[in-house]
């Protein structure tokens, strides 16, 4: 029988790989009797579905100084090639 530590690891692995039959069964057996790990599983599924690519409207932009530095660096490298 899995401990909660083992069950949480297998529940996490299930999002990234196919479980073996043995792992799948042991996870189901543990989840059947452990509400804490059922909650953990629910939490990480919700986490996976809310994490998205950063959107285009995000506030991070190149500052005027950054742009200038980028221009200068690239120009000098291109000129000295």
């Amino acid at each position, binding site marked *: 029988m899995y401990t*909660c530590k083992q069950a949480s690891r297998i529940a996490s692995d299930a999002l990234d790989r196919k479980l073996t039959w043995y792992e799948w069964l042991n996870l189901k057996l543990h989840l059947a009797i452990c509400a804490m790990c059922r909650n953990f599983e*629910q939490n990480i599924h919700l986490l996976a579905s809310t994490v998205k690519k950063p959107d285009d409207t995000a506030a991070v932009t190149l500052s005027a100084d950054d742009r200038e530095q980028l221009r200068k660096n690239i120009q000098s490298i291109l000129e000295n090639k």
Partner: protein
Amino acid sequence: MAHEPASAEWQRVEEWIADHGDYLYRFACSRLNGDRETALDLVQETLLAAWKAHHQYQGSSSLRTWLTGILKHKIIDHMRARSRMEKLADDVSNDPASDWFGTDGHWHESPKTWSASPEALSENRDFDNILKACMDKLPPLQAQVFFFREMDGDSSEDICKNLSISPSNFHVLMHRARLSLRHCLELHWFGQQRKNS
């Protein structure tokens, strides 16, 4: 191409900076835990590499997609060098499981049900800020692996190959990233919501 006048060559790069500079910079920042200095370096390397290879650009994908692909490789190279340096010391050798579990393998603190729909959370700016703050606290390699997997949907095999890590290290890193993020979100978001309702 090599005999193109320098000003024309330069103009091409100038256009890339104007049209895609912010996007590439934002992408790099999001993958580097907000390390803006390194992000700027990698954007510069990307533009130079793109300039060297621009005759290979077929136009089959958008220019932005092509540039982002180059940037992604630069980020992977950067992380790979870094993970070699750290020898995964921070991320894999230590066992921070004791942060979450007792020696008997039981939870220190019981996870609770999260009642919220993914749609509502994705549109919530406040939640988004908390999520970003929680991700910023992850160790670099954990954050990288998590981003590639959950944000980009890359396959486990590709991530292991690109970052030169073993499948078992990959799964350890994902498990730890999820444990940390779950804990952080419980503390700073879901626990607070429960209190207020």
